[in-house]
């Protein structure tokens, strides 16, 4: 489903930073992958490329056979809208929208009819266990609940690829565990491909495969149970 060929990403600014330095990687549909590495090793950059939020400086990023590097800004936006969803460490909810409105946002962007939106929003809110909170504002929720709203927002489009950047980074162990369970359940029940960046070994162990990054290079890639790939 996902293939990276010789991907290099550099940021030009006052000084040039090479965030990714020749990544080759392939992730199959239905996998649940953890990405680990020290801060600044290029994890977020990699995730952004996978989701079409950014394009590589060189190399190819193939998602479902399409090279995102060659797509226009608009085509990548449409791709994000339908085929991929995100969860962020800082939730990135709209502070001024109610829970249900936040969840409905991607569907509105895609122009889905109103009754269809209502049905799907109710469904995913039930799935993440927040049906009682739909009228609240994000400020009125706990961190765990906020991340669950973000997950509901990611699920509502039915995208086959879910990218999560340190989804448990802001949560205590118990809340983090809840989120991990939720992600695992989604992976199991929907067959969604999940790529999750994390610092947490426990969280990584919830995944079937672990990719390690260091200084913008793949340092290790192993299946759960220790077998190298």
């Amino acid at each position: 489903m996902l293939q990276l060929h010789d991907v290099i990403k550099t940021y030009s600014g006052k000084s040039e930073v090479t965030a990714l330095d020749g990544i080759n990687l392939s992730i199959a549909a239905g996998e649940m992958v953890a990405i680990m590495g020290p801060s600044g090793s290029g994890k977020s950059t990699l995730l952004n490329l996978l989701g079409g939020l950014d394009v590589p400086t060189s190399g190819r990023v193939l998602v479902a056979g399409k090279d995102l590097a060659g797509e226009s800004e608009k085509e990548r936006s449409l791709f994000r809208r339908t085929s991929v969803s995100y969860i962020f460490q800082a939730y990135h909810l709209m502070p001024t929208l109610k829970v249900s409105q936040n969840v409905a946002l991607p569907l509105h962007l895609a122009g889905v009819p109103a009754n269809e939106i209502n049905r799907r929003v109710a469904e995913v809110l039930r799935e993440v266990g927040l049906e009682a909170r739909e009228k609240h504002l994000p400020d009125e929720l706990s961190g765990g609940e906020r991340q669950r709203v973000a997950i509901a927002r990611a699920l509502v489009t039915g995208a086959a690829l879910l990218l999560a950047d340190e989804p448990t980074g802001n949560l205590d162990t118990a809340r983090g565990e809840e989120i991990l369970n939720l992600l695992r359940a989604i992976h199991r029940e929907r067959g969604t491909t999940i790529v999750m960046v994390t610092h947490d070994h426990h969280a990584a162990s919830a995944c079937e495969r672990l990719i390690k990054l260091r200084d913008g290079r793949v340092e290790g890639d192993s299946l759960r149970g220790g077998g190298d790939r």
Partner: protein
Amino acid sequence: MRFLLRTLSLSYVRRNVAKTLLTLLGVVVGVATFSAIRSAQGTLVKGIRSTVDRVAGKSQLQITMEGGVPEEVQERVRELPGIRATSPVIEQIVVPERGELGSLLVIGIDLLGDREMRDYGFDGDDADLDDPLLFLAQPDSAIFTRQFADKAGLKTGQTISLRLPAGVKRVAARGLLSPKGFSEAFGGNLMVVDVYAAQELFGRGRRFDRLDVRLSEGTSVAQGSATLEKALGPAFRVETPARRGEQMERIVANFVSGFNVSSGFALSIGTFLIFNAFNVAVNRRRRDIGTLRALGATPRQVQLLFLAEALLIGVVGAAVGCLAGTALSQGFLRMMGQTTETVYGVTSSGAVHLPPGIVLESMVLGILASLAGAWGPALSASRIPPTEALAKGAFQARLPGRVAPRIAAGLAAFGCAILLALNPPFGGNQLILSVLLLGGAGLVLLVGPLSRALLQIFIPLATRFAPVSGRLSSDALLGNPRRTSGTVMAMALSLTFVLGFAGYMGSTKATMTRWMDDALTCDLFVRASANFSRPDFLFPGALREELLQVPGVRAVESYRGVRPLYQGQQILVNSIQVGPTMDRTRFEFIQGDAESMRRGVIREGMCTVSENFYRRFNLGVGQQVELVTPGGVVRIPIAAVLRDYSSDKGTVLLDRTRFLELWKDDRVDIFDVSVVPGADVGQVRDAVRAKLAGKFPALVSTRQEFTAEIGKAIDAFYALTRITVFLALLVAFLGIVTSLLISVAERTREIGILKALGGLPSQIARSIVLEALALALTGLVLALPAGNLFALFMEGAIAEYFTGWQMPHHYPWEILAQLLIALPLISAFAAWIPARQAGRLEITRAIEYE
């Protein structure tokens, strides 16, 4: 999109009510001034048209002549074939002593003969008017309209006090007109008197303002005017009332076009405010934009969201603006009406109404201004890369594109503007527009790099005074070149406008003052009318003998000015006893000299022309001026070219003897009185006043009093500069406030960290004030040369094109001093709100921000 607007935009508005109102205010002010000026102009024009129409009655042609139509012309016209009736008219606007009643249009007509022309519709029982002879037997008789009488609480037989040229006089209402047709002219503020009484009241001598003509059945207007023109000669104008109305409208439209500049300025301030407000909003909502983009919003969707908000603001602001405009327009109408009345003798009274056409126009303009302001910020919002918007640190906006080509293009545009201004290949509005556009574009392109360079000079200075705050503010300014140069640009442009405008006005004033000192050299001025361009009274020529008998008077010269058309322009023909005048006055000669002037003008009946006449019409010494006089066209050789600022269209000077010969009209505008050596000017003035009191309206002033009065009139014109200075300071203030708000928002995290590290709120506040001062100072430094160039352009190319005058440059030091005091105060005050916001930031929230 509707969902996004309803949820995201609305909640942003709800959280930022003050800022939204400020944004709205920009559109409201712009649209209000625009619609008010337009509707006041519309009402003025419409009022004038309807007054001309209604007063014209059944007359098909109107005969006028510069200086008045002599009485005997009526007899000549009456005998011509195809003329059914003629009727003389005198028109004059006067003010009742109770000013709140509004100006009155006095119409002098021949009551015995006028019923062929106008339908008076007297109110039923007015016995007096059954016998017009009775009316005429009482010299204070007047007829008012029913509307005016009701307003003034006036009944038949009662009197009302009016300010007439000879002083306050009481006139009696002998009859009332019922409100229809004729009596609705001038909004009903009409007073009808006998035309011969009007001649006395308004110093018309044995002349009328015009003759109304009604043609016989079967004579066409074309035939009629051909007959009249042939019989009367070129000094007379024969026009249909509609043509005359059109001409007055054109005069008003020309005059009002100056106001369009103001409303354009107001609208661009509105656009600028929107631009700033949207820049702030885009910055504030950066993360939301990033989230939207991550969720699959296309760049176009983001752009459309902001444009839709701008559209809403435009619609609401424009609607409110139209309402406010209706309220403002009455004031504008009064202001415009006063000027058109004193300068052109036309005005309208009555209430302003906002016609749907103007409403539509104003709405469209308001919305366009709003969209134009939001366009740039909306575009940059759509171009924010999602990764950057979501990133934790503040990745500051990139440097603007390459600098070298920008500077080159800016210099090229500026150079073109200067070249164009120095050797204009064409003139008028075209020239002004192209020079301003090129110069403006050059300035816009150059401001960025120049302000950066200037700030780099400023920074070491600031850090010397306040190490921490200075460093902070310079980082903020240089860290976001786009914001900085945007603010500096707005400041520089509006200050350029101010300095240029003030420079021009100052030069005009200085030039005029110097010329007045040279030209107005006698001791006393005895004027018949306060209004120079449209005198409402003239003295009989014989009054000179009486003045000469006043003790202390040594000499009296009679000045008279008429304004005939020359090549379609209303030039000024001055006449005076040139010999005695030359003995006491220093003329500045462009061509010829005092000797050739004396010989030519006094002995050979030649004329002199003013410098601007010479430039405008390209006529100098050795050539002849073709003047249209009552006796026909006369060719007068030019003896000299003089510097003279009495008319912006051009002046021709004749000796009084020559003038009397040509115009056969000995009436006088001003008597120039010289006193015997050693006499007390004040005493002579009082003696002259006493001599004339009760007989003639006379404004008797000493030289100092007269020049002071003219100076005051120029100053009133100068008030316009004060308004533009105020508007420019407003732009500066709002520009700095919004720019600093963005700065604080952008650096929220940084400020939070600083505070966490023990930075004092006062240090942070000081850095923001420093930032404001740096912005203001940079704008001013850039505006200094640009404003100077602008002023030079106005004094040179523009003034020469419109007036033919060449004015020496005069730097507007007073305005510069005012700005140097006001700008720092304003910018410090502007920094106050953002500084408070920064001081109040909670550390924990600030660090979490972005």
